[in-house]
Structure formats: structure tokens, C-alpha cells
């Protein structure tokens, strides 16, 4: 079992590396295509179905600045896979270098329990939880923009801001009455 560590390698100049983890591999590719179009910094996107990452690419893999777990709310498996993958991350990542991206939240067939479970998971790990629309180009562009903002901070490219500092402000919080039955 190899842990993915945030500071195991030297950073490259003016470069940010993002790892997209999605068990279904649906949204990954379009998001990656949009992410690498950023001109201000060099963005390297690595894709994975789940963690741990295979050993053979260990040498060529750059330092990962931000790990994004894409969770399709319409599928239980997606959440389970993300939960299982979390074990293979160094605790150092949870200081602002992990973020959850939920898709399909608008879908009416999504049980509210699953959404609550994702929110609780994000809150427990002090990570931001983003929602994205993966079907429309606008949704992909929006998600890209938001991820890039976090990524630049996590990669240390924004002066006077650190990943820990940002995540203290953006971490997901769960209302205390989330377990109460709602009346609407």
C-alpha cells in the first residue's frame, strides 16, 4: 500500500498538477480537456479511476497539488469508491489539498441521504464540496474555473495564500440538524 504524499517531490516551476479521481470515468476527460487550456500556468492533469495509484508510473508522476474526487450522486458505487480511495492519501493532503466535486445533484432520482452522506464526508475531512453540471459546456467551464482557483492556491502560485488558509474558509460545513427529518 503506497500513500500518495503531497511533499514527496520537488515542485516544477510555474506548474500545477491536479489528479482527478472518478470511478465511472465520465466527467474526467471533458474536465481535463478544459483544465489544460489554462494559459497562466502549466496545468498537468492526471486521471485515475481509484487510489492507490499504480507503482509503475511512480517515477514519472509529478507532485500532485490537488486531488479531486468526482462523485456522481446518481450512483452509490461512485461514493463507495471515493470513500475507499481516501485511505490511500497522506494526511497532509487533508490540509487543503483535497476537494470533492459532486455531479448530478439536480437529478430528482438522487436520494437525499446520499447527498447528506457526501456532505458529511466532506465536512468530516474539512474539504470543500463543489457541485458541477457535467452535461452542458457551461457547467464544465464553471467547474473548471472553480477547480483552477483552488488548484493555483494549492500549488502555491498565489502570493499570500496557502491551501490550508483557503480550505479553512471554503470547507464544507454540515448544518447540525441534518439528521432531523425535514418537513418540506
Amino acid at each position, binding site marked *: 500500500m503506497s*500513500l500518495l*504524499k503531497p*511533499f*514527496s*517531490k*520537488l*515542485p516544477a*516551476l*510555474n506548474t500545477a498538477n491536479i489528479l482527478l479521481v472518478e470511478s465511472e470515468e465520465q466527467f474526467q476527460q471533458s474536465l481535463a480537456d478544459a483544465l489544460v487550456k489554462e494559459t497562466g500556468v502549466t496545468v498537468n492533469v492526471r486521471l485515475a479511476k481509484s487510489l492507490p495509484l499504480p507503482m509503475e508510473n511512480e517515477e514519472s508522476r509529478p507532485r500532485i497539488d490537488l486531488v479531486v474526487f468526482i462523485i456522481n450522486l446518481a450512483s452509490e458505487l461512485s461514493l463507495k469508491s471515493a470513500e475507499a480511495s481516501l485511505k490511500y492519501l*497522506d*494526511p*497532509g493532503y*487533508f*490540509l487543503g489539498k483535497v476537494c470533492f466535486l459532486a455531479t448530478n445533484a439536480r437529478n430528482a432520482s438522487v436520494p437525499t441521504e446520499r447527498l447528506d452522506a457526501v456532505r458529511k464526508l466532506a465536512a*468530516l*475531512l*474539512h474539504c470543500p464540496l463543489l457541485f458541477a453540471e457535467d452535461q452542458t459546456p457551461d457547467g464544465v467551464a464553471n467547474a473548471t474555473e472553480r477547480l483552477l482557483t483552488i488548484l493555483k492556491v494549492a500549488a*502555491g502560485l498565489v*502570493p499570500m*495564500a*496557502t491551501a*490550508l*488558509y483557503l480550505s*479553512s474558509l471554503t470547507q464544507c460545513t454540515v448544518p447540525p440538524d441534518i439528521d432531523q427529518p425535514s418537513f418540506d
Partner: protein
Amino acid sequence: MTEAELKPDGGAAAELSEAALSELLDQCEDQFAALEKLQNEIILCEPDFCENPQEQSVNRLMATEAELKQWLTTEPASLSANSEVLLQAGKEEMLKLCSELEMVVSCCEAKRDKLKETKELEQKWLEEKKQVLLAASDHVERLQAEKETLSEYSVLQDTKEKIQKIKDYQERLMESLGDILEKHLPLPQNESSSNKKKKNIELELNEDLISLNEILEVLMNKVLKTPHDPYVTIDDTFWPPYVEMLLRYGIAVRHQENNFKIRLETFF
């Protein structure tokens, strides 16, 4: 925390002088050397495992506190001693800030316009609702006033008036029907002054013929008096052309089995 140091952008150096550029590069190299040193220190450090979230929270708290301490102890230092570099960096920052602020402005303007539109729409709705309220309260007032002045006697009077009105109307209808029938469908008569050909035919006419008026009356009375058997037998007093006309225009209907019986069409 360690690599959050700013690295001056290489692209900005394009307009810098040789001396400034080399100074900047030297600075970058120094920074990178420091970074490498820190990196080695990190790798040498034994990572402390913490599986459960409680410990992770503590971990996080410690890290945040450490960062806070660092921020507090950090002396604000200028990016570089070289004024040329500072000017360039400042210019770039300003331009970036400007473009960002412009975006904020356009965003705010769009929001404002949208709000304006919404406001206009809402005001229109409000106006409509006000009018509806006015009409409704008007109606309520009228009903209340009516209720106060209304008595059993006036209701009776009202009904009587209505009945009278309907009666008048019916009378008028009957009168005009009679007028029309009299004027346009007179009883066939022997016209002695007419030409000879006609005279020959008319001579055969029965003297007991009744007018269309009377035919209709007979039919109507029959329907009202004996609804179960509304048929009237055609006899010599019915002028055949009139019967034919009534049948053709759907005013009367022949009996299905007896050709000599007709009844009024059921208009109601």
C-alpha cells in the same frame, strides 16, 4: 506552507534591463535552493500516521496554528530591492487587478439590470393585484349593501318583475310570429280577378282550409297537452303545401309508421 513563496513570473522580465534580469534570476535560484533544502527536510521527517478523523482534526488545528504563528512572525519584506523589478511587478499586478475589477463591474451591472427588470415585472404584478383587490372589495361592498336593503317583499317583487318581463317578451314573440305569418304566408283564397289558369286550380281548393297560424297552434297545443302522443292527424283542412313546407324546413316531423300523422319537432 513551505512552497508558498512567490516566484516572480519569467514572462514579466521581457522588458527588464540586463542587470535587473540577472538579479531576478539570482534571486530565483536562491529561492529554489532554499526550497530544495526544505524539501529534503520534509522527506527526512518521519510521517506520523493518523487514521481516525479525530486525530486528523487535531492535526489540522496544529497546522493552522503553526501557519498563524508563521504569519505573525513574518516580517513584511519587499519583493526585490531593485526598483525596476518592483515597478514591473506592480504594473502587472495593477493590470490584473484592473481586469478583475472590470469583470466585477460588468457582473454587478448585469445583476443590477436583471434586478431592475424583476422590479418592473413585480410592480406590474402589484398594480394588477391592486386592481383585482379594488374590484373585489367593490363587489363585496355592493353585495353587502344589497344584503342590507334586501327583504322578502323586495325579492318577491323582483321575481314578479322578472316573470312579467318574460311574459311580455313571449307575447312580443307571438305577435311578431303572427305578423310574419299573416304577411308572408296568407291563407290560400279564391282570387277571382287573377288569370284564368290559376283560377281553374284554385277552384278546387277546400273552403275549410285553416291558416298556417292555426296549424302551428294545433301542433303546439297537442305537444303541450299530451306529451306522450304529440302526433296530429292531417286532414282536409291542412293545406298540403304548408304541411310540405313545415316538414321540409324541419319544423314538423312525420310519424314513422303513419304518413298521415305529424308532430312538432322537439326544439327543447
